[in-house]
């Protein structure tokens, strides 16, 4: 899987993060507070995001959808107890959903910089083996200031340079503290390959002096 990821071409995409916030004790529903556009660059197997732009996002957010998140899921699922969960309706054929549990001391899922135990879910399209969805449901410690810190990332086919790749399309990151809920909805679009385009222009017919 990791090898396959590194075989992806160099590209960049637009990441749109819409942030919703809710004060549980004062507001009946979440309110939209911010919409942020940033560029994600994937070059030579590494994902680069503008740190300044990422710092503007409040609440729990996702990063590493182009590699590290998949790596985390694969690494932890391989060690964890991967079990069958269910079939789920897909656009053409049903998707297979598996679940695994990871304790904090074996986890690579970090919340607030600390490894956190979690329940992971992997959704796969059996017709081609492509991962369609990853879910991380945190088992937050009892003494934490957060009680919920969950993320989900959905993948889908994107055509780049005449070939189809499985790329992240949409994500949700939600965290609950005592007072506030932060919900970040992330979408990826405008995928572009890095490349050089050359255009040859004819010499001017009349030389202006």
């Amino acid at each position, binding site marked *: *899987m990791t090898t396959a990821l590194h075989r992806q071409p160099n590209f960049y995409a637009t990441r749109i993060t819409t942030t*919703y916030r809710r004060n*549980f*004790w004062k*507001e*009946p*529903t*979440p309110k*939209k507070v911010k919409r942020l556009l940033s560029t994600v660059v994937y070059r030579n197997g590494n994902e680069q995001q503008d740190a300044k732009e990422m710092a503007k996002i409040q609440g729990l957010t996702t990063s590493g959808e182009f590699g590290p998140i998949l790596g985390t899921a*694969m690494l932890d*699922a*391989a060690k964890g107890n*991967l*079990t*069958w969960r*269910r*079939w*789920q*309706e897909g*656009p053409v054929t*049903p998707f*297979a959903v*598996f679940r695994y*549990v990871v304790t904090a001391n074996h986890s690579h899922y970090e919340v607030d910089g600390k490894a956190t*135990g*979690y*329940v992971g879910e*992997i959704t*796969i399209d*059996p017709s081609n*083996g492509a991962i369609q969805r990853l*879910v*991380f*449901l*945190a*088992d*937050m410690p*009892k*003494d*934490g200031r957060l*009680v*919920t810190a*969950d993320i*989900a990332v*959905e993948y889908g086919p994107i055509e780049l340079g005449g070939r189809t790749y499985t790329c992240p399309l*949409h994500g*949700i990151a*939600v965290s*609950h503290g*005592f007072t506030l809920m932060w*919900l970040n*909805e992330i979408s990826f679009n405008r995928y572009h390959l890095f490349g050089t385009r050359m255009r040859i222009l004819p010499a001017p017919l009349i030389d202006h002096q």
Partner: protein
Amino acid sequence: MRILALFLVLFTSCACGAQPVPDIAGNWQGRQSKLKIARTGSGDLRAILHLEATPPDYRTPLIAPASSITFDGSILQISIDDLQVGYSLNYSGKLSVDGNTISGTLSYLTGESLPLVLFRAFPTKPITVQELEVLLTQLSGRSDSIVASRLHSFQLTQQLDAATLAHLLNSLPGPKSTDALDILAAESTFLDPPQVKFQFSPNPALQHSRQSSHAPWIT
């Protein structure tokens, strides 16, 4: 006739017993108190209690995570130790049938105890994806604000997938209802989707897992 009546009574009581137990997770508030209860990925409960005043002086506020929390379907038990104020407290309460009230007692190790009734903050009604589709059909022709307001009063009990969401968004009258449905869908992300009957063997992966601990498509 008596046998039939008895059967009907038994059938009715069984049907009532099959009603789902309301979930204790949520935001609860009472007199000078707030309680947040959430479920972790593994299904365990976490809680944080806020009291505006704690004995003996009733001036010190408290906000502390629960050391232990149990819920057996109706009775909630919470213990909080290692308090900044220096002693433990326990809360024991019963969840009402409609799932919107917990009636109980808060007891301190100092020997004091007081009744504490908690109400669900901003209660919402549960709704399935199918019921949501029907609701939006019924609301067809209503104003954007009315549809948004109705949507805000519900919480999905099943995951609303991207295809169904896109289909439903097309039927909405404006930006307020679109935002409301987007939020409903986003909050449903971590729930199981509605059950679908497939035309093939229900679980071939299980047969595979008897031979291998790994899923067939992950190599």
